[in-house]
């Protein structure tokens, strides 16, 4: 039992570090990663693409994919090691997460050779940026309830409808889209999956302002948008299965939540003065700190157990769903407690506080981490059903043609 890299893993880590040292700035000690921070700064996209190209040239993009996909047949553990190292540097790679992490694995699993040849290399080297056009006003958790229609017209599909919450749609070149090709089929059977050129006529993108004030996601409207049939991924009517490949890749990522963690709270407690002295000397504060430390460590060692599985060439199962739930909730609890310690002076945004505004910043983005990529409740359903083998909730939409499934008044969104 140890935490050591195998010799191969250590060699790979050294290689990754050498590349990063030569091509990126190491994050300053104590600096904390935010959520999509810096993404809106002028020139950010160009800098991010430039780094991505160098990363591609150095062979660090998709190297863990099979060679048929354009990868190098590397291992999942190498991918984790690279990401661990990259996280120590100030680089913006979030922009490419959907293309590389979700769209390419889905297209390579289900798509045609021609689709692979058209998209994989160019996506790897940041020529193409992708967005995910899944959620709709009528349902995000209940993705298969989607209403956006795709109707066959000769060699083309004609798409009408609306998507929502689509991160980065406003700067993306392509989108992965699930639409309803057969409204008479039962809900999950009538869907098909497409690659959509975001510059195609008939697409209207409207940014949505988020709690944090910035606008990283959008509403996307389709009016008679035409997609050639050659851009369909997987068989007609198999859209649900194809989308599940995307969702698996999204949910099994062993993702942590960026933002203040135990160390930041600890450092805050050593600086803040309470009624009876420094916060760190107060027993009630110490108990809370200890609880957060235990949660942080539990998360870290759960990831280590997942990495051990990867290191042995096994796939960590749905067990890794717990990481996202625990991480997002821990973040929210830590930053609320940190702000409580700061007290009346707490609400100030910016550089004035002992820990320079990171708790305030995270307060405003943290709700997203419990929603995006599967809400807490959906993740807990997954744990209950797939790990513990509990029965599904009874459903009123099973075996019923999609047309006849009840919907609420908000299902059609703002424009429909």
């Amino acid at each position, binding site marked *: *039992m140890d935490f050591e890299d195998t010799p191969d893993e250590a060699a790979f880590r050294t290689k990754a570090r050498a590349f990063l040292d030569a091509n990126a700035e190491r994050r300053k000690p104590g600096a904390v990663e935010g959520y999509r921070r810096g993404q809106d700064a002028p020139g950010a996209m160009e800098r991010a693409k430039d780094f991505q190209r160098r990363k591609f040239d150095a062979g660090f993009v998709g190297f863990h994919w099979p060679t048929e996909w354009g990868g190098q047949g590397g291992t999942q553990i190498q991918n984790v090691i690279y990401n661990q190292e990259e996280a120590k540097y100030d680089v913006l790679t979030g922009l490419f997460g959907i293309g590389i992490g979700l769209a390419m694995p889905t297209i390579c699993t289900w798509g045609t050779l021609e689709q692979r040849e058209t998209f994989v290399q160019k996506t790897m080297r940041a020529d193409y940026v992708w967005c995910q056009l899944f959620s709709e006003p009528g349902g995000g958790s209940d993705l298969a309830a989607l209403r956006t229609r795709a109707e066959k017209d000769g060699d083309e599909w004609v798409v009408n409808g609306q998507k929502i919450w689509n991160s980065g749609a406003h700067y993306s070149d392509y989108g992965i889209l699930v639409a309803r090709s057969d409204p008479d089929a039962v809900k999950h059977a009538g869907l098909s999956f497409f690659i959509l050129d975001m510059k195609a006529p008939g697409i209207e993108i409207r940014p949505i302002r988020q709690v944090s004030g910035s606008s990283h996601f959008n509403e996307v409207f389709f009016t008679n948008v035409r997609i050639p049939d050659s851009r369909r991924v997987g068989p007609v009517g198999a859209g649900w299965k194809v989308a599940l490949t995307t969702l698996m890749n999204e949910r099994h990522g062993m993702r942590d939540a960026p933002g203040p963690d135990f160390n930041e709270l600890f450092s805050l407690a050593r600086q803040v003065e309470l009624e009876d002295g420094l916060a760190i000397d107060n027993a009630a504060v110490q108990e809370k700190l200890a609880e957060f430390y235990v949660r942080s460590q*539990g998360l870290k060692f759960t990831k280590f157990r997942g990495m051990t599985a990867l290191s042995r060439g096994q796939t960590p199962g749905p067990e890794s769903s717990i990481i996202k739930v625990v991480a997002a909730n821990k973040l929210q609890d830590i930053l609320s407690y940190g702000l409580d310690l700061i007290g009346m002076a707490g609400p100030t945004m910016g550089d004035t506080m002992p820990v320079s505004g990171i708790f305030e910043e995270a307060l405003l983005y943290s709700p997203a981490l419990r929603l995006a990529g599967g809400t807490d409740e959906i993740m807990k359903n997954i744990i209950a059903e797939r790990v513990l083998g509990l029965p599904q909730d009874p459903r009123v939409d099973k075996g019923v043609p999609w047309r006849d499934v009840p919907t609420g008044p908000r299902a059609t969104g703002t424009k429909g």
Partner: protein
Amino acid sequence: MNFDFSDELKQLRDEARRFLTDRCPPAVPRRILESDEPYDRALWRSIAEMGWTGAAIPEAYGGVGLGRLAVCVIAEELGFHVAPVPFASSVYLATEAVLQYGSEAQKRAYLPKLATGELIGTFALAERAGTSDPRKLTATVNGGTLTTVKLAVPDGDVADFAVVAVNGGSGPWLYLADLHGPGVTKEVVTTIDPTRSHAKLSFTAAPADPLAAATGPESVRRLLDFAAVPMAFEQVGGAQAALEMGNAYAKERYAFGRPIGSFQGIKHKLSDMYIQVEMARSNAYYGAWAVHTEAAELPIAASVARISACEAGWFVTKENIQTHGGMGFTWQMDCHLYYRRAKQLALALGSAREWKLRLISELRNRNTEDLQAA
């Protein structure tokens, strides 16, 4: 990255599980609960014959020499099966104390008999309600004899000797006391978990043999750190069993025409139980690594493992009762076996509250960046 037990240790765990499934089903702790028998003597003999009591004792002293990781995997299975045996007292505490602080002569006298299960040891610390900080102890040894009263000593009625913590000043803080010797009275006490017997031990000028190397209150803390890790595995084992019990019931019990496990109030509760068990397990692994390597960060790792295990044990065993409805509150259902044991174990080495304060004080003493596993 190899943050897991070796195949040999996993094999040992599987053997332990098979043996205990057969030999220690819930009817066994229940029998102890419902009788005056303090522990299952036949089970104890079998456990000793399989070498579990000597797992961490080097071969030179009559043990099997498998090391502390072996004790951890066995502990998890004992916890899963709520085994009514003095294993924790004798192995995690008494044996560990002799191994760490005993003289050569003491090791030769005690370890071979601890290994065969012929001798049962325990650990006596608490003198009153509240803190178990060794610095607050009042017991002292004068002229080689001990006079004090120790409360709620696990297995105090069945142990042959006790490792007794005292306020040793500049001398030793741990002593060996023969519980069959003069000046010792044992009074069996009823506790929340009668599947593990407890006694109040009164020492009146009782002969006490110093563990000379146990200097300062830190030596007592260190012993608790070493014990907290296998204890955390035992707690995780119990929590796992309660989770499995609740999960099985949720699948077979129907209400409103459907399995209760299809109601999200129950489903999400079970997911939360699973999350707690897995987090506690991961933290126990961290502890295992630290006792195995005797890492400098052991006090931190042990505290983390301990706190996490106490929280998981409490949450999971109480929610298992809740999942069972009225049935969960019956004597007849086994839910209370896990519930009782979880709280007993959560108090045995000092409560999570104390370990939390200790954890923070340890973290303050060092720069977190220096931690190996950080």
